């Protein structure tokens, strides 16, 4: 249960209980994340943001989460660029940054970078995305957003739409949703469907996702519509891209088929997957989802650096 001094590398490292514990703690963090209350439990601690790839959202929300808890932040991203150009190994960079802070948040272009960093760092490491690998804090905030909107994850009908092949967030999200008994529908053109090894992994865990290319066929049963970006680079032929991107554009017309309380999520940034007219509807949750990055990351920081989840069982 306790996450004190633990690394956060992959969502697979967490038990269902641990995830629930983090989501509960995240809920408690909301008023502090909004600035309505203050709680400087990490006063005197230093977080090192080590980003080898640009990422506005993730980096900012870690900074915001840290400051809300009174934790200082050093941005060592500049240094990471110089270490790469000097040919320094990640292992060496990590050992050095480790000496300057109490926790490292790492974004890196290569898969497995966070696991390696955790091995060389004495202080805990949080994976903020490693190449096409995993991005566990995104998964946690996605789960939090769904649970917050629906009260539970059990039995929810989740429709994942877009690039299910390369999108790193949907793979670990599907994995985690399975743990919570959600029903999953995969909507994508054949060329961007979820890879077989991931689907069979879901099946082993008792989830039998439904696959289709036609969103209209399934949208009326959805509780959550999780939209991902379809990247232009994946298509050698631009006209093919335009066709696919156009097919899954979410607008008010297609939402007429949806349940009233169906929510639309998107990890952002969006590039035309969701029409701006959707923003004002009761369905839109993607900006709330982006905000939720703060309480969820606050929960992780306070559990890892402050031992917040330690006495949970005793207190209950």
């Amino acid at each position, binding site marked *: 249960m306790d996450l004190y001094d633990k690394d956060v590398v*992959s969502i*697979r490292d967490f038990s269902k209980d641990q995830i629930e514990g983090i989501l509960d703690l995240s809920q408690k963090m909301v008023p502090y994340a909004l600035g309505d209350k203050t709680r400087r439990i990490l006063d005197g601690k230093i977080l090192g943001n080590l980003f080898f790839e640009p990422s506005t959202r993730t980096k900012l929300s870690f900074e915001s989460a840290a400051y809300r808890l009174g934790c200082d932040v050093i941005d060592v991203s500049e240094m990471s660029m110089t270490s790469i150009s000097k040919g320094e*190994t*990640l*292992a060496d960079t990590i050992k050095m940054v480790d000496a300057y802070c109490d926790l490292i948040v790492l974004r*890196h*272009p*290569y*898969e*497995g*970078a966070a*696991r*390696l960093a955790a*091995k060389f760092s004495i202080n805990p490491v949080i994976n903020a995305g*490693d*190449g*096409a*690998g*995993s991005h566990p804090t995104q998964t946690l905030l996605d789960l939090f957003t769904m649970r917050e909107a629906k009260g539970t994850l059990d039995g929810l009908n989740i429709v994942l739409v877009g690039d299910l092949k390369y999108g790193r967030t949907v793979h670990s999200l599907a994995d985690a949703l399975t743990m919570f008994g959600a029903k999953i529908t995969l909507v994508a053109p054949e060329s961007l469907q979820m890879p077989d*090894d991931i689907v069979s992994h879901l099946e082993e865990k008792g989830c039998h996702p439904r696959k289709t290319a036609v969103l209209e066929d399934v949208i009326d049963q959805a509780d959550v519509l999780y939209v991902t970006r379809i990247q232009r680079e994946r298509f050698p032929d631009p006209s093919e891209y335009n066709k696919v991107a156009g097919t899954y554009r979410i607008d008010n017309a297609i939402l007429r088929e949806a349940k009233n309380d169906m929510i639309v999520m998107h990890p952002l940034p969006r590039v035309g997957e969701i029409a701006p007219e959707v923003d004002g509807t009761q369905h839109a949750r993607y900006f709330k989802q982006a905000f939720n990055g703060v309480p969820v990351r606050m929960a992780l920081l306070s559990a890892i650096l402050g031992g917040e989840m330690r006495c949970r069982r005793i207190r209950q």
Partner: protein
Amino acid sequence: MQTNQTVKEIKLAPIRNGTVIDHIACGQALNVMKILGVSENNIDSCISIGIHVPSTKESKWKDLIKIEDRELDSATVDKIALIAPDATISIIRDYYVAEKYTVHLDDHVSGLARCSNPNCITNKGEPVAPEFTVVSRHPIQLRCCYCDRILTNVSDNLL
């Protein structure tokens, strides 16, 4: 049946001293040869290879290799286990089987193969050995402990 068996075994000449690698998964003999790393420059004894030889075991067919005057070190045997998990190693001394054991594959494999994901951090010059968890033995499936990918094509990625 017994005579039949004897006839089959005679297909490869007996050796006085050396090693027999038997019950190699069918089709893997040449990959085992790669692991043994023998070439005309570094060996001056005889090697016989049996490919697609009838087997008395449930697999029906197997490959086998007999090498004269050589015994295998443990790293070599561990690599063989990665592509032929049921192989037996018999050390022959003076025509008799002096020692015999089945290769053993641990649940955790370190430093024997590289990850097949080119974007994996273990392929980027970092000071770590690639590590894998064995997720299945028949067929062999290894999962990279760093990037979480299943290693495709073990025999092409042996170190």
